[in-house]
């Protein structure tokens, strides 16, 4: 409604020019700018202020809107990254739609970076204002979109991180579904004996927490179940889950274990790292929550002895089938954890080949009192206690051929094992630790390392190059280099324990696919921002906790669980969720998918926010759209529009920038988050560079349509620059920069073929910290432009122009 009203009315633009004390006025001729602004079409009111962002300055804007019936406002001041939101609120206070506001950045982009050439700086500032006015003329009012929020949460993974997230949310009063793939919650922590550096018994501290989760009225544990699909968006996710059959009726099972007693069949217990066995009807460990038994039909012979033992309780049902359920939640926390690498493929250490080579997690099950040996550390080969144990660190981790990252907690758990062995068997056991570095940062860790050393363990700095077995005794010979002595050494040990890497959980790929998460090169889930959004997944409403993001120890995982719960609560605690209206909109009349098979937009959308059905126009799920504009640039039919960054608006800016002397200018398209911020920083840092550049801000480099480049060249631009976030992971829209790169990699050779000098079109990756780099790029491009010379540029342009005009005909530009 508002839109129609505005369109009907002639634009009445007010321009407010800020002195910013002397920050702007000290370099630029404000009077000249004011006079210039008055000459621009549709500008009906121009006012300069000492500080526009201060209260009096803001009041001037509100007054201007009221008294001069302004329906568009341009503030020429600092960077929009600084005060765009401030002024949007200001115009909104004066009953003007906040999206009818535009900023002209004449501080960071002019006064601050061209202080020694005030005349040229003023000329540049004029054009910056002109560009802003050109865009302002075409601005449309936008309404913030609100979606209702379902105030329930899904936590995926019942390890210590997921349990904490669930408990915290439940305590805040939200209903939580805790989905667990295994039979019981507890995760890896429930497998451990003691915890470092305090040596608390792991299950003694985790067990009560598991019980709390199991009993909490707001938590529903869905264990032994798989995540099938997730659809919807923040506040409104639909989740499909398959509950796998336990062949036990959970409500009837009392967990008494009488069935287990009569069961004749045993199979290797994965929970025990297959060191011991469990019954075909059993729980993986005694403290399991929910305490419901499970029949493993792969091994069960169906003698039905358990049915007899269960008797009147009638908890056993061999006919149980998988059951699919659907949940609706407002937020999702992913806490799927990690796996331990089993180094079968590593020939050096003989794992899987020599009986007395085990992993640390296997050692953990051996030394655990409730483990398969009742806490006795014994060798597999003869059942005897080892008199010497060698620990090898960084097996798989910090290995460029395997997993280049550090697995975070291995140093500390090995120290724990050393202390446990030494305290249990005293001088009866000799302990060797082969390490690269002992990483004992964090509270109490270094002291713990000291304790292990004082107990008389031998710490040998150096890589073990080979482990060999003595066939008669099954003892192991370790060949290593002692870096402290600087010579090769040989150690004989009764047992070798490998501290193997923590690796992404099996099935992470599937979870990533279902939830549209991204995974790093190491396979762990990527957070939205490594510093400022460490708990957010790139998809709104989905959060990460614990080792699914990278290996973490217990306190860190607990903190992340609580943190993710707090993040989820920011969504769940509201009745509705507001979505920025800078989203993509498909024109169903133009969309090719109606007549042909297209779907390019859906394929390129980094968020999976576009739905494609055969013979129907593409459909943007507004709540999932992040407003990067990649689809808009990719659409072969120009059927998609990005609100607030329309093709028409950007073309208008381009034309305004290149109206006079285009051959002397660099036209730049800069992404908001990195390259524009880098340019801001060049200004803030007062890095001076030639005033040749005219920048157009887009949210993401993915928005930069090849038509933008073509149009700039058609209009005669001397140089064209596309600025983006660094590859591979810096893009704030997951992969918009990659989409831009692919597009421009195809465009550049084509332009060269048409006769464009290669240096005239450039793609650069500039981070928000690289002000120096940005200034350097502008200097370099300006030099190149001058070396080429105006005449050559003009000649190239003349040759290109008819071809470009032909290419841009459909845009109706000429």
């Amino acid at each position, binding site marked *: 409604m508002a839109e129609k009203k505005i369109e009907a009315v002639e634009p009445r633009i007010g321009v407010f020019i800020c002195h910013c004390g002397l920050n702007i006025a000290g370099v630029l001729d404000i009077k000249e700018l004011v006079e210039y602004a008055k000459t621009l079409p549709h500008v009906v009111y121009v006012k300069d202020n000492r500080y526009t962002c201060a209260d009096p300055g803001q009041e001037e804007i509100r007054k201007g809107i009221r008294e001069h019936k302004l329906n568009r406002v341009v503030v020429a001041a600092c960077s929009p990254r600084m005060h765009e939101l401030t002024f949007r609120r200001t115009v909104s206070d004066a009953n003007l739609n906040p999206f009818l506001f535009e900023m002209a950045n004449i501080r960071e982009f002019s006064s601050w970076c061209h202080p020694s050439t005030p005349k040229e700086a003023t000329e540049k500032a004029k054009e910056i204002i002109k560009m802003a006015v050109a865009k302002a003329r075409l601005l449309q009012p936008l309404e913030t979109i609100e979606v209702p929020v379902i105030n329930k949460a899904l936590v995926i993974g019942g390890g210590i991180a997921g349990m904490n997230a669930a408990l915290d949310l439940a305590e805040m009063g939200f209903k939580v579904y805790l989905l667990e793939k295994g039979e019981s919650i507890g995760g890896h922590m429930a497998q451990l004996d003691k915890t470092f550096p305090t040596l608390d018994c792991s299950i003694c501290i985790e067990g009560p927490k598991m019980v709390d989760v199991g009993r909490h009225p707001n938590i529903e544990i869905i264990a032994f179940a798989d995540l099938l699909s997730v659809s919807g968006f923040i506040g409104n996710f639909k989740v499909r889950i398959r509950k796998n059959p336990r062949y036990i009726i959970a409500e009837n099972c009392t967990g008494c274990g009488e069935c287990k007693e*009569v*069961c*004749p*069949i*045993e*199979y*290797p217990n994965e929970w025990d*790292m*297959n*060191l*011991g*066995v469990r019954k*075909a009807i059993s729980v993986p460990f005694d403290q399991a929550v929910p305490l419901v038994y499970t029949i493993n039909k*792969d*091994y069960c*012979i*169906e*003698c*039905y*002895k358990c*049915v*007899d033992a269960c008797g009147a309780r009638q908890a056993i049902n061999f006919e149980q089938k998988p059951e699919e359920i659907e949940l609706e939640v407002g937020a999702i926390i992913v806490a799927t954890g990690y796996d331990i690498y*089993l180094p*079968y493929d590593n020939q050096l250490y003989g*794992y*899987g080949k020599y*009986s*007395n*080579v*085990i*992993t640390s997690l*296997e050692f953990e099950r*051996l030394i655990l009192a409730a483990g*398969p*040996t009742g806490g006795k550390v*014994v060798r*597999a080969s003869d*059942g005897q206690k080892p008199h010497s144990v060698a620990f090898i660190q960084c097996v798989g981790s910090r290995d460029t051929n395997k997993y280049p990252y550090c697995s975070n907690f291995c140093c500390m758990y090995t120290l724990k094992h050393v202390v446990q062995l030494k305290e249990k068997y005293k001088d009866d056991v000799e302990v060797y630790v082969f390490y690269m570095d002992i990483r004992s940062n964090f509270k109490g860790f270094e002291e713990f390392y000291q304790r292990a050393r004082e107990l008389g363990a031998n710490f040998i700095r150096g890589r073990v190059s080979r482990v060999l077995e003595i066939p008669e005794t099954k003892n192991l010979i370790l060949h290593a280099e002692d870096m402290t002595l600087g010579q090769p050494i040989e150690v004989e040990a009764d047992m070798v324990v490998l501290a193997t890497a923590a690796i992404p959980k099996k099935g992470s790929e599937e979870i990533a696919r279902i939830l549209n998460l991204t995974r790093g090169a190491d396979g762990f889930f990527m957070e939205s921002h490594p510093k400022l959004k460490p708990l957010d997944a790139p998809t709104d409403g989905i959060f990460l906790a614990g080792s699914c993001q990278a290996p973490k120890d217990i306190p860190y995982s607990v903190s992340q669980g609580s943190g993710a719960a707090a993040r989820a609560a920011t969504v769940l605690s509201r009745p509705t969720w507001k979505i920025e209206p800078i989203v993509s909109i498909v024109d169903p009349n133009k969309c090719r998918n109606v007549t042909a098979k297209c779907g390019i937009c859906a394929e390129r959308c980094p968020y999976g926010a576009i739905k494609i059905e055969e013979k129907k126009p593409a459909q943007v799920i507004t709540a999932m759209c992040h407003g990067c504009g990649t689809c808009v640039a990719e659409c072969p039919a120009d059927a998609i529009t990005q609100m607030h960054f329309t093709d028409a608006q950007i073309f208008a800016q381009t034309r305004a920038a290149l109206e006079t002397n285009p051959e002397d200018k660099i036209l730049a398209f800069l992404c908001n988050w990195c390259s524009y911020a880098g340019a801001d920083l060049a200004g803030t840092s007062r890095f001076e560079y030639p005033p040749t550049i005219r920048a157009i801000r887009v949210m993401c480099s993915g928005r930069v349509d090849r038509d933008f480049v073509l149009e700039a060249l058609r209009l005669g631009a001397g140089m064209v620059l596309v600025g983006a976030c660094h590859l591979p992971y810096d893009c704030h829209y997951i992969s918009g920069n990659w989409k831009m790169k692919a597009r421009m990699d195809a465009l550049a050779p084509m332009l060269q073929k048409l006769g464009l000098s290669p240096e005239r079109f450039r793609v650069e990756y500039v981070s928000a910290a690289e002000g120096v780099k940005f200034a350097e790029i502008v200097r370099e491009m300006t030099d190149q432009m001058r070396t080429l010379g105006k005449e050559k540029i003009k000649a190239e342009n003349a040759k290109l122009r008819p071809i470009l005009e032909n290419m841009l005909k459909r845009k109706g530009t000429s």
Partner: protein
Amino acid sequence: MPLKTLKTATPKTLTLEWILHVKNYKLNLNKELCVGCQICTLACPKEAIKIEKEPKFQGEKAKVDIDLAKCNFCGICDVLCPFGAIKVTVNGEHILSVVEKESFPQLIREIQVDTSKCPIKCVECEEACPLGLIKIGWMTADGKILEAKPKRKRKGLKVKIDIEKERCPCCRICEFKCPEDAIHVRKFFHGKILIHQEKCPEGCTDCLDVCPITGALYLSEEDKKVHVNEVFCVYCGACKVVCPVEETLELKRTKIIHTPVRSGAWNKALERLASPIEMSKELKAKGSQKVLESVEKRLGWKGA
């Protein structure tokens, strides 16, 4: 140590193993003893055992394969093999949990020998046993055991008969051959075997070639065809496996003599080894009314 699952084959044995840090499961198939009767194949609850190649001539052995991924070392094959060709051990001990926990019965090999009736010089049973399971020894008055027959008569000498019971299919040949009625054997498989002579091809002796019991099948001089002597047949079914003409050799097990159990696994094994009818008969006899009802429902006999 991580779990090791091993399968090793030699010309004479096939061995499957689960080696865990604290436990060791082993299944050993003695190929020499296997007659290829397929009792194990039928009975295995995990359908892990397959006869890959049937024997085709006398002395050839069946090629048996056991799937390591399916086998759960329950030992049912061990319990049921009439010839004791399969042995399942846990930590080296031949104690089967399915038997201990009464999840599966044991076959009853009822063999009674009254050595007091044995004439000192008689070795009829030892010579008669088709599988060579009987060993005759002599015990002197002072308890010494002599392996060879004493040359001269000694006072107080007693005959001692050792029978490898685990491997005995209870064919009763020894009983019949015994001149003194000193041995009594009861079969554990009861049933019926019939060769339809009109279909049986002349000159084919496939069934006879594989039959482990000498005399249970014989080639008739008259019609040059194989005939049955039911008295000695142990109903193992090796003959039926190899018979080249369908529906020529009919073999049915009607009853299996075993220790008493209540077990679904046994019911299923019985159903497959004998027939659903035999199984339901046994359930009726045991008074397992509820199980019977569910079985009858499953087989569509009643109230489906």
